């Protein structure tokens, strides 16, 4: 626990999900879109802002993959 948000848990989960859905390229694209690598995702807070950024990035990856 750091501050009022959990560290790592949620954001790291996005990387696992990206790898599951889109492979290694998905992880790299997720890093590119969120500007936070998986290593750093493990060190930053699961703040609502960060979660929203990752959700939007995942949505964008899904849209690109769907298109």
């Amino acid at each position: 626990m750091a501050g009022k948000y959990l560290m790592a848990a949620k954001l790291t989960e996005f990387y696992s999900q990206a790898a599951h859905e889109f492979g290694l390229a998905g992880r790299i694209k997720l890093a590119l879109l969120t500007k936070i690598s998986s290593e750093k995702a493990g060190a930053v807070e699961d703040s609502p802002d960060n979660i929203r950024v990752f959700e939007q990035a995942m949505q964008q990856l899904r849209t690109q993959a769907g298109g």
Partner: protein
Amino acid sequence: MLRMKISTRLILFFCGVVTLFVLLASALLAQTRTVSAGYAALLGQQVRQAEMARVTQVSFKKQVQEWKDILLRGYAPADLEKYTRQFHDEETRVRSGAVDLARAVTDATCRGLLEQFVAAHQRLSEQYQGAYDVYLGSHFDFRAADKLVRGRDREPTDLFDKVVQQLNDDVVASVAAQERAVARSRSLALILVGGLLGGLGVVGLLTVRDILRRLARLKAVSDRLAAADIDGLAIDISGPDEIGQFGESMKGVHAAIEELSSLAAAAAG
């Protein structure tokens, strides 16, 4: 420094330069008009009055000369008629010139002198008429006639010399005042132009220096990313301008390279 887009800053700077030049051109035009109006008033009023005074002064001298011609050559009927007519013509010119000038001048001293002159000239005319009558009655005895008016033209002559001098002094004073006004306007214009150009120069210099400083930081980050030197790399370039936006994109590239590196490390391990 205000955080604005570089394009916005450049447009604002350009607009500032254009506005400055429009203001300068307007100020120059207004100054030219003021100077022109000042000299037009000077030429149209005071210089014209000084010229009128000189013409009247010459007419008065001619009138005195015509009197002397009457005395010298009046024994001949044709000359008497000719010089008498010319004498009265000049007399009329002097009177009307002095009266018109007294109405036109704004200088109180000058107007007072002119009123004194008109009165003295009127007295002189009466004295000339008396002497003329003696001249004719004494069968052209110019000595007897001259004795009656000798030196009587001195007072009006001196008075009118003073009028001319006063008007000339007024013109000189007005020209000096006009030159002082022009010098004041010129100094003000120079201060304004210098201030505005200086201000614009400082703003331009600060803008360029800020852009170059941020570009240098961006280039340093770009060089390290190009060399895959990402250990400890922190991209602290932000802001709403184009460089800030580019810095944000760099953060994505940085994160992607970090991700690639960690994946490569995991694959190797």
